[in-house]
Structure formats: structure tokens, C-alpha cells
């Protein structure tokens, strides 16, 4: 299990390849891997966005993500979990977050991944400040809550 916050560009495939190379103890046990990658769009609430600054609360963000992973592990049979979240300055198309779940069975891998993303969006202390095409900036007010949103 690993959570990390990084100010360096997030390269999901490389991150996953490197992380999976350490999983030798799981050989033959994994039946299902689910991955979510959140990426910066160049439009939000119908306004063009040119860049985004992601702020976090060093220490608490990591602690919060670890708690969420623990909740997921308590709830489902999971073999491994990886969460990586970007902070700092992002451009459109840059990956923001990576959530990967390894399990023997797909139902648990899907459910745990969704749970982690929803909880991360609801609870992890991270804030987005967007720069619009007219150079104005705005803080994103609130993530749409729960499982029924479409963000």
C-alpha cells in the first residue's frame, strides 16, 4: 500500500510499471486490477482553463489518503493499493491523480477504486485554483459530492 503527493509530472504508466515490479509477493494472486486516472481538462464550468495550481496540506493530505486506503482494506479483500496525487502547477492534459487497486476479484477491485476516488474528492485536503484564458484566476468552489455526480 502506498500513497504519495508529488509536485513532479505524474506519468501513470511508468508509475504503475515501477510499482508493480515490487509486487513479487503477489505473484499469481492478482485477478483484477482497476485504475483511475484523473486528468486536467481545458474547460471547466463552460470556461476555458489554461492552467491550474493545486495546493495541499502537507502531512494531513497523506494521512487522510492513508486513512481512506485503510477503510478500503477493511471493507474489501484487496491485495494492494496505490494512490499518487499531483500538486503544484498543472497544464491541460496533465494527470492529476492515479488510483490503482489490485485484488483477486473484479467486483472488489471496481468497488474499492470507486470508493477511494469519491472519498478522496470529498475528504483529502487539496484545492484547485484555475487560471482562465483571460488571465483571471478562480478557486474551484466545491467538488460535486457522492456517487451520483458526473464530474
Amino acid at each position, binding site marked *: 500500500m502506498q500513497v504519495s503527493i508529488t509536485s513532479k509530472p505524474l506519468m501513470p504508466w511508468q508509475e504503475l510499471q515501477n510499482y508493480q515490479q515490487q509486487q513479487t509477493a503477489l505473484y499469481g494472486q492478482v485477478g483484477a486490477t482497476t485504475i483511475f486516472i*484523473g486528468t486536467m481538462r481545458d474547460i471547466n464550468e463552460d470556461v476555458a482553463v489554461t492552467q491550474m495550481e*493545486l*495546493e*495541499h*496540506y502537507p*502531512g*494531513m*493530505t497523506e*494521512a*487522510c489518503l492513508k486513512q481512506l486506503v485503510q477503510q478500503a482494506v477493511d471493507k474489501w479483500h484487496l491485495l494492494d493499493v496505490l494512490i499518487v*496525487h499531483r500538486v503544484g502547477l498543472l497544464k491541460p492534459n496533465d494527470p*492529476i*491523480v492515479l488510483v490503482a487497486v489490485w485484488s483477486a476479484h473484479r467486483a472488489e477491485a471496481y468497488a474499492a477504486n470507486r470508493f477511494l*476516488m469519491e472519498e*478522496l*474528492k*470529498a*475528504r*483529502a*485536503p*487539496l*484545492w*484547485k*485554483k484555475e487560471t482562465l484564458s483571460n488571465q483571471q484566476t478562480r*478557486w*474551484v*468552489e*466545491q*467538488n460535486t459530492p457522492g456517487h451520483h455526480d458526473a464530474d
Partner: protein
Amino acid sequence: MSIKVRFFARLREQLGQSEMDLSATAVTTVLQVWQQSTRQPELATNILAAVNMQYVHADHAVHDGDEVAFFPPVTGG
């Protein structure tokens, strides 16, 4: 007693500071820390609070050496 107060994101910008050290003479709560550090009587319901990096309610007790943080709704992911 000494308490570290931190502000994040829009709140940090609005208050014009990211952290401060607060001296209190008696047992205090998160709400009192908010009032003393911001000079605002009300803690808006959409401002979140954490003590020692754990979410708490406004009536949570604060002790010497605690770190108290206030911030707007989170927007990660």
C-alpha cells in the same frame, strides 16, 4: 498555552496569511481559536477544521501544542 493556526487555499488568500502562533490562557475550542485568530465571530459552515491533521467539529477542544487548520471545501482528484 501555544497553538499553531494554519489557513489554506481561498481562506489563506482572503485572510492574507497562511499561519500564525496563538497564545491562549485557558482551555479553548476550535471555534475560539477561529475567533481569536481571524477576529471573525462566526465560523461559516462551509469552512472545514482540523486539529493535528484530523477533521474535527467547531466545539472540539484544543490543547497546548496543537495545530489547528481552517480551509474551504476540498477540490482534489
